[in-house]
Structure formats: structure tokens, C-alpha cells
């Protein structure tokens, strides 16, 4: 069941190669965007002996997908939806953004950079580990640079300018996905897929595991990947804070107040998944101290 959340697959994206083929290109480890240099904590787990073989690796990947994977999938879906929406309904200064990038960066409501910075800040708030934030921004920056040449679009130009230090990887991935003609579900799938394939490949190289065995592990994760992508997209419509929050309490959270009725852009972002993996945080920080490391993260 594909959820057609991104209404932006219409007019603005009509002239793009669309959908599935673009998803394959985007998720392919051969996409020259530097993803192969990151192990997502797997290298440090191998060093510490918490991943020693396929069984440990399977549990590592499943836990990673249920936490970091779900969060990046949701952020990528949100970014793709935003990209599609702004491509369909460009704000006024927007059309001037292509080419030399001389858009006046006015702080007006029409500033197309503003929602991107807000979404990027949501990614920051979900990444407590500075090592992980840095790895995410490095990958995001590289992906935007690459994607601007492969799938040039005003949206990618805007994002590159909105977050000059490098947008978080899932944000960049969502924007690149939209530019390539993918919908939010496909963006979420690419993010979820990346969250496990990188560590799996790294483990093959670090432990000399049988690549077929490891690919079997990834195949076993296929249903969980589908679930994560669906959950990510469902979270875009669930504008309300997780159920169970009493309605009579003072609602500090904008998402609570707006509820599902309000359709202002990004009103649901605060409530997007924030699943955290304390061990991944420790692994990411420990990894920086390893002078012999093979992978950047």
C-alpha cells in the first residue's frame, strides 16, 4: 500500500525521470556521494567486540533500523514532501534562485530557506551525539553537491544556501529524492535502506564475513524496511503528538495545538519520530578516538 502523501508528484516534477528507477539510482551504493566511507557505528562495535559475526550483525542492523533508520526515513520523507510542495508552489523570490544563486536572502515569510532551516533543526534535535551530527552533515553536504549535478533543481540550490554548513543527510536525501522524481515514500525507503546497508557492507569488510550471508540478513530485513518507510510516511499525517497525551493539559507544543486540521507547512515536524539508540551514540563518540579507523563514522 503506497501512500500518496506527496501531492508534489504532479506538475512540478512532470519533466523528471520519475519514481522507481530514480530510487534505485539514489539508493545505490555506487552513487558517488561518499556513503561508502561510513559504517554507522559498526566499525566501533566490531572493535569493541559487540559485533563478532552474522548473529550480532543481524541484531545490530535490526536495532539500528528501528531507531536511527526510522528517524532518518521520517526526516527524508518530510524533506521530500517539502521539496515537492515548494517546487509546485514556488515562493516569489524562488524562481531567481537557479544559476548564480543571487537570491536576495531576505528574512521575509516568503524566504524559501526558512522551512529548510527549521526541518534541519528538527534533525539536530534528534541527534544528541555531536559525532553523529557531523557525520550526517558531511554526508548531506556531499550528497547535495552530487545531486545538484545529477538532478539539478531550484530546491537543491535553495537547500544548499539555506544550510551552508551542510544539511543533515536525511534532509539532503529527501530533497535529492524529490528532485530525482521520487515521492516521500520512496525517499523514506532510500533512507531506511541506507541506514542498514552501509553498516552491513562495512561489517563484511571489517570481519571478512561471507557477503552472501550478510545479504541474506538484509533480505530478512526487507519487511522491516517496508514497515519503517510506511511508519515514516504515516508520521507525516499524524500531526498530533503521540496518543495518550491528555487533552486538558497546557499544550506547549505547537503540534498539539494545531492538530491534524491545520495544514500549515511543517506543523507536524515536531511530532516526527525521535527514536534514539543510546549505544549508537556511545559507539559514534568512541569511534572518533580510534586512531586506526577505516571509516569516517
Amino acid at each position, binding site marked *: 500500500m503506497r501512500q500518496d502523501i506527496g501531492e508534489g508528484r504532479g506538475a512540478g516534477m512532470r519533466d523528471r525521470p520519475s519514481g522507481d528507477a530514480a530510487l534505485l539510482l539514489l539508493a545505490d551504493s555506487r552513487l558517488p556521494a561518499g556513503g561508502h566511507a561510513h559504517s554507522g557505528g559498526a566499525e566501533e562495535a566490531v572493535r569493541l567486540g559487540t559485533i563478532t559475526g552474522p548473529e550480532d550483525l543481524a541484531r545490530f542492523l535490526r536495532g539500528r533500523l528501528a531507531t536511527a533508520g526510522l528517524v532518518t526515513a521520517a526526516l527524508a520523507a518530510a524533506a521530500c514532501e517539502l521539496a515537492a510542495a515548494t517546487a509546485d508552489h514556488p515562493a516569489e523570490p524562488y524562481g531567481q534562485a537557479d544559476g548564480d544563486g543571487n537570491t536576495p536572502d531576505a528574512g521575509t515569510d516568503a524566504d524559501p530557506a526558512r522551512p529548510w532551516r527549521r526541518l534541519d533543526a528538527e534533525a539536530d534535535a534528534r541527534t544528541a*551525539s555531536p559525532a553523529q551530527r557531523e557525520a550526517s552533515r558531511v554526508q548531506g553536504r556531499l550528497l547535495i553537491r552530487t545531486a545538484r549535478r545529477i538532478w539539478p533543481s531550484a530546491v537543491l540550490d535553495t537547500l544548499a544556501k539555506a544550510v551552508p554548513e551542510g544539511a543533515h543527510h536525511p534532509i539532503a536525501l529527501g530533497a535529492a529524492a524529490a528532485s530525482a522524481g521520487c515521492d516521500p515514500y520512496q525517499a523514506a525507503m532510500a533512507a531506511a535502506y541506507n541506514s542498514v546497508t552501509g553498516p552491513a557492507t562495512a561489517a563484511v569488510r571489517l570481519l571478512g564475513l561471507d557477503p552472501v550471508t550478510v545479504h541474506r540478513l538484509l533480505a530478512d530485513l526487507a519487511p522491516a524496511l517496508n514497515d519503517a518507510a510506511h511508519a515514516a510516511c504515516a508520521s507525516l499525517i499524524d500531526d498530533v503528538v503521540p496518543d495518550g497525551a491528555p487533552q486538558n493539559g497546557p499544550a506547549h507544543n505547537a503540534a498539539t495545538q494545531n492538530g491534524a486540521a491545520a495544514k500549515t507547512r511543517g506543523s507536524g515536524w515536531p511530532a516526527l519520530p525521535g527514536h*534514539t539508540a543510546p549505544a549508537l551514540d*556511545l559507539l559514534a563518540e568512541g569511534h572518533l578516538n580510534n586512531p586506526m579507523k577505516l571509516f569516517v563514522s
Partner: protein
Amino acid sequence: MTTPPSGPAASRASVTARAVITTEAAGGRTRLETLRSDPPLTLRQTGPGLVHLVSTAAGPLGGDHLLLVIDVAPGTELEVRSVASTLVLPGSSPGDSVMVVDARVGAGASLRFSPEPTVLAAGCSHRMAVRLSLAEDANVVWREEIVFGRHGERPGRCRTRFDATVAGRPLLRQELLIGDPAVDASPAVYGDARCVGSTLIAGPAWDAVRDQKGERRATIGDGWATLPLAGPGVLASALAQDTVELRSRLERAESMADVYAGHMAGENGACRAATDTSGGRRAVAW
């Protein structure tokens, strides 16, 4: 911690309870303006600006809905603790037990929230949500410790959500999922730990000097880390086998928070950590 026998506890009807703490400034001092509670959430003032949560009934049990509202007025100080751990049990009523804390900390105010751990008994199904809304120059220390079952016990299920904002901007959003065997034992999530804890330490002191080129380095030890956030705060985080180890690791991590405070004018590593702008990622000198 007093452990109620599960028989009588499980037979009590589920409750909806609401407790409120609000402060006001009275001549430069903090006065508790409101202190209202319902069993099983009972509050007692135990000192100036100090309130203890006292459990006056078992629980929370399945079906219970508990809400704690904390409003720290501008310029005032509040500390909230608990006298004992909270034991989350299954109940006779269907449905999750739910605990929501809604806290607002005003300008120049400070809140320290450090209750004893929450213990997830076998069979429980619990949800916790914290919404912490900070004014621009509010200070907070917010500790949360969760224990996966009593001794030798597998925990029930628990979902937590923590949302902290500063002047409306997101500072930290985290969810924990406990009780899914496929995830709990993952070396990526909790590994072989049986307790997880974190303390958010936030305030204007952590907002200042940040290296624009790169992230500051965390401080890490055995099973703990002090993580400087992107916004004005630090997260102390720990994993451990038992509550004693968890508390000691968490306190260790909390004690490193000052290293990242920008307003410190020390001359040791603390100062360098906050002000070094040339060293990039190697800003913290151990």
C-alpha cells in the same frame, strides 16, 4: 522502594490523576503558589523550592492516566524529587498506563527534576511523555532513569517521548522503545545493559561560544557520554547493568557538563573546550 504485592495492586481500579506545581516570585524568593495532587501522584513540600513526589498508591497500573504539570515562574527556582522508585505494573484494566509531564520554565527561572528511577515490571505496558518548554534564559536539569524489570525479571513494554524546546525552538527530541526483544538486545540500542538513563542540562551558559566549523567533541567513559547538543544544552547519557552503576555513570557524565559551559572563565580544559575556535573537532582537551 516498597514493592506492593501484585495481587491487591492489580485489583484496584485504574485512575486518572492530575498534579500541579506552580511557583511565584515573592520578594526575591520562590514561593510555591500551587501544590495540588491526587493519589497516586502525591506531592509534598519538603523545603524551600523543593517538592517530593510521594507514592500513595501502587502504580502506575495499566489504564492509569497521570498528568503532572509544572510551571516555574520567571526568576524562581524549583527542585522536584521523589522519595522512591516508581514501579510500573500491569493492571486489571486494559490499556497502557500513561504518565505525562508538562513543564514550563520561565525567563531566568530554573528547574531541577531528578526523581528516582522508573522500574518496568514484567507485563507492564507504559507510556511516558515529557514536554519541557524553556524560556530563552531558563535553566534546567532533567534526569530520567529507566530500569528494565526488577531483579531477574524481563520488562514489560514501554515507550517514552521527550520533547524539550527553548523559546519554541527544538532542543532535544527523543523516544525510547523498551520491551521489544529484537531491539532491546541489539548492540546498536541497549546491548547487554538493563538500565538506561539520561540527564538534559540546558541553559544560556551552554549557548555561547560554538565552533561554527565543526561540532564539539563529546566526553566519554565506560558506558557513559557527555554529549554537547546543537542547541544550548548538554545530554548526559548512560547505560548500565544495575541502578547503582547507572547512577554513578550518569553523575559522572553530568559532572562533565560544565566543561561545555561557555560562560566559564576557568583556565583548564573547561575553558578551552568552550572557546577554542581553531582546533575544530579536537576542542576538548582531556
